[in-house]
């Protein structure tokens, strides 16, 4: 099979024809045809649940299609599960890192295919040649302009560097196609630039790249062609140059889904009504400060804080943004009580909130939408309703603490419906839902306990376009109707569109504040980089706002 040379050029490097896959009653993929040539960068987009992940796992050789074929360079693909052979053709850099943190860079690059001591050029089952492994790692890194020492333990690397190691791993196997699954999800802006340079370098060298992303602007920037999946079908394949962003969104959402979105909006209002209806009397009147934060300091590994003060008034949506290391997630976590801080004070309705105690912060009325939904957002094998009501079991249970599944389902229904959450029923384990629906569970869990302050950290990360708007608009309308304050900590600028004010953090300090929406994208980006030239203009903006 390896004999069928890529250099022929005429045949497609990767060719998928009529691929079908079903899970129970769900048809995840229906007759998908896709082809990828050497040196081509093809974008693959689609909403959550459109079948992207399924296609990725088939293309990675991890699961077998029910029908249809995958061909590499004209010959049939290796057997599913024969990962070694499969990697000679296509290697996947997954959304969630597949790096073993305790091993060195070289070991991770050659994981599962360590060079043999006897034949240093080939992978073998016998004794490991550490020298060959390090030398070849250095070689690959040098060849591609990557700069990480092979001896470094991967636990010490940044997210960007880990991704580089994964790309190097793909190249070490001689893969002719690299599949990048949401590669920019955890990267900072400059790291994204460097990733794009690497992708261009790869395609220029004749490597095919399949680029999967929720960020359409990235697709337009880096991909020559784009393929759109909707409900398991490939609805569009075209050169990116021939499309506008609206065309792409239309193809992703489709005619029917637009109507669905309209009803989703109505549902969102229902959820809001549910929140509003039960809001405790005596809530702060609009305009009163719900949250007061003074001089917060922290040495958190996620980003230090050195003296941050801020206010959130009732009904106000305040954004906090900045680079990943600037402390954006830290301030959210500290206020939500998910993490302790080393100095300063957090007050809710004027009362101090005990630091680092999530349960106490929640009782005080602080809702928390965590940064990483897989880690903190839900309990995977418990049902949708149970996860949604996890923060309100005390209210749902009687004096003896008895909690009936039926009451749970009834209590969860308005919130899940309001967010247009799609599941087979309240008892379906959250693990089985798509990423966007999982995020809706996390948001519903927060809305369900009717917080007077919602701390949302990157609430739309890894979520498709339509769900993103739904989630953001539900947060905005909760603030508008129930008088809850919202603190939105996010490095995604599109999240900030719902904000009334935006604070920009640089290295753990408030660098500047923007208080008259709509916020200019470029100005925000420059501010997050802490560019001093902008401070004048920022000051002017602030002045204008004051007037």
């Amino acid at each position, binding site marked *: 099979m390896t004999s069928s040379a890529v250099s022929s050029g005429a045949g497609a490097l990767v060719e998928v024809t009529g691929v079908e896959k079903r899970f129970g009653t769900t048809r995840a993929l229906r007759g998908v045809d896709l082809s990828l040539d050497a040196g081509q960068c093809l974008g693959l987009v689609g909403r959550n649940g459109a079948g992207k*992940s399924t296609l990725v796992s088939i293309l990675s050789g991890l699961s077998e299609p029910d029908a249809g074929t995958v061909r590499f360079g004209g010959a049939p693909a290796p057997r599913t599960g024969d990962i070694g052979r499969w990697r000679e053709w296509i290697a996947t850099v997954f959304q969630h890192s597949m790096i073993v943190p305790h091993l060195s860079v070289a070991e991770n690059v050659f994981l599962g295919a360590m060079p043999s001591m006897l034949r240093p050029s080939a992978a073998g089952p016998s004794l490991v040649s550490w020298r060959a492994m390090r030398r070849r790692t250095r070689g690959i890194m040098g060849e591609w302009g990557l700069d990480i020492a092979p001896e470094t333990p991967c636990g010490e690397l940044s997210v960007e560097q880990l991704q580089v190691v994964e790309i190097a791993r793909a190249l070490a196997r001689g893969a002719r196609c690299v599949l990048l699954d949401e590669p920019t999800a955890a990267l900072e802006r400059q790291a994204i630039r460097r990733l794009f340079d690497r992708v261009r370098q790869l395609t220029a060298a004749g490597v095919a790249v399949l680029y999967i992303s929720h960020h359409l602007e990235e697709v337009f920037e880096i991909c020559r062609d784009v393929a759109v999946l909707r409900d398991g079908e490939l609805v569009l394949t075209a050169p990116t140059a021939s499309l506008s962003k609206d065309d792409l969104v239309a193809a992703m959402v489709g005619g029917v889904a637009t109507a669905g979105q309209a*009803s989703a909006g109505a549902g969102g209002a229902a959820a809001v009504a549910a929140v509003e209806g039960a809001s405790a009397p005596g809530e702060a009147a609009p305009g009163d400060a719900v949250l007061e934060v003074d001089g917060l300091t922290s040495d958190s590994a996620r980003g230090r804080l050195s003296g941050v003060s801020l206010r959130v008034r009732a009904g106000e949506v305040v954004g906090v943004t900045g680079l990943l290391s600037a402390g954006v997630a830290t301030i959210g976590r500290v206020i939500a009580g998910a993490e302790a801080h080393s100095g300063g004070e957090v007050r809710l309705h004027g009362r101090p909130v005990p630091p680092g105690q999530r349960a106490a912060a929640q009782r005080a009325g602080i809702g*928390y939408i965590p940064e990483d939904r897989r880690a903190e957002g839900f309990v995977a*094998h*418990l049902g949708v309703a149970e996860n949604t009501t996890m923060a309100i079991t005390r209210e749902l249970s009687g004096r003896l603490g008895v909690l009936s599944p039926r009451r749970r*389902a009834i209590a969860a229904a308005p919130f899940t419906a309001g967010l247009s959450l799609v*599941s087979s*029923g309240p008892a379906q384990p959250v693990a089985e839902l798509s990423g966007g*629906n999982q995020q809706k569970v996390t948001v519903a869990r927060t809305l369900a306990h009717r917080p007077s302050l919602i701390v949302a950290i990157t609430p739309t990360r890894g979520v498709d376009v339509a769900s993103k708007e739904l989630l953001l608009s539900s947060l905005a309308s909760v603030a508008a109707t129930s008088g809850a304050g919202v603190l939105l900590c996010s490095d995604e600028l599109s999240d900030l569109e719902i904000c009334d004010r935006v604070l920009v953090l640089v290295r753990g300090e408030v660098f500047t504040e923007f208080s008259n929406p709509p916020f200019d994208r470029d100005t925000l980006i420059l501010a997050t980089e802490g560019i001093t030239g902008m401070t004048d203009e920022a000051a002017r903006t602030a002045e204008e706002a004051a007037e």
Partner: protein
Amino acid sequence: MISNQAPQGQAPAAVRPDGGPGGGAAPPGGGPLGSRLRGMNVSVLREVALLPVLVLLIIIGTLVSPAFFTVSNFAGIGQQSSALGVVVVGESLILLIGGMDLSLESTYGLAPMVAAWLLVPVAAYGNGLELSPYLGILVLLAVGAVVGLVNGLLIVKGRLNGFIVTLGMTIVLAGMQNGIVKAQSLFNLPPAFGYLGAASVGQLPVSLIVAVIIFVLTGLFLRYHRAGRAIYAVGGNPAAARAAGIKVERVKIGVYVVGSVLAAIGGLMEAGRVSAVTGQQGYGEGIIFTVFAAAVIGGVSLKGGRGNMVGAASGVILLGIVSDILDLAQVSNYWIEAIDGAVILFALVLARVVGGESTAEER
């Protein structure tokens, strides 16, 4: 599962002919290879996974000996298994929060030993206090609670590894069990102290009745009580439970305490059954292996968050029947352990094949 009938917004759930939910949402990354028809059907299947094995064992037992299929034999199995069963409930709770406790076997020996030591006269190696048997039972429960609290504090607050902490504790407690009575056995326990393990109502041993009540109450608690559900949340994903405002540390420490108290109650049953407390009870007999085996055969996950009392109970019954059949078949004492172990391995494999392992959240 009643919850399936509850309203669920606009979710366009495909309805299967049996009225259950269909797979509505798309699968997350990777796509599980197995069937997606899970939820209720499989959890029921998993709960009764051991039923065919139990039926098979009962058939084998009946063929092996005419004495097997009799009320008195089953009462005997019940009485012998109930002490173990109560410890299995405790261990299952601890496994559910994602912990483990090896020292339950020593608590099972030490708690009745301390109580008995305070009850019996100096001549019978007691300490001379000669407490009333009812106070003795309170002491027994207190010993259990204290051991559980120390374990819980060391593991949860001290952030020490549960395996090592409870391994160390096992040996400390077993040493104390022999130390306080200078390695003597205590006999002539007051009747009230031995009642739980020795008495019967008609043919039914009291210990069996109590064990069944403990299983049923714990099962209902886990399914329908706020704190029971919190145990599943904490075991399934402690970070998510904490983010949802559950006091994770408190739940964990509480479960360690309850687990140890249950082990002490199991020890009381055993002491009553054999009308003595020996230095061997618990650690010396190595019961913890059987305890873990029963829980795991019954489908309680060692990784936390999964399992229930129906499974744990069937694990206990299965092991009880096996050892009874081996007795009745007059298997040579030299071989009984090897066969016992082999049966446990077989049951584990079978339970895994029939019940299926978890499918979710492996990354």
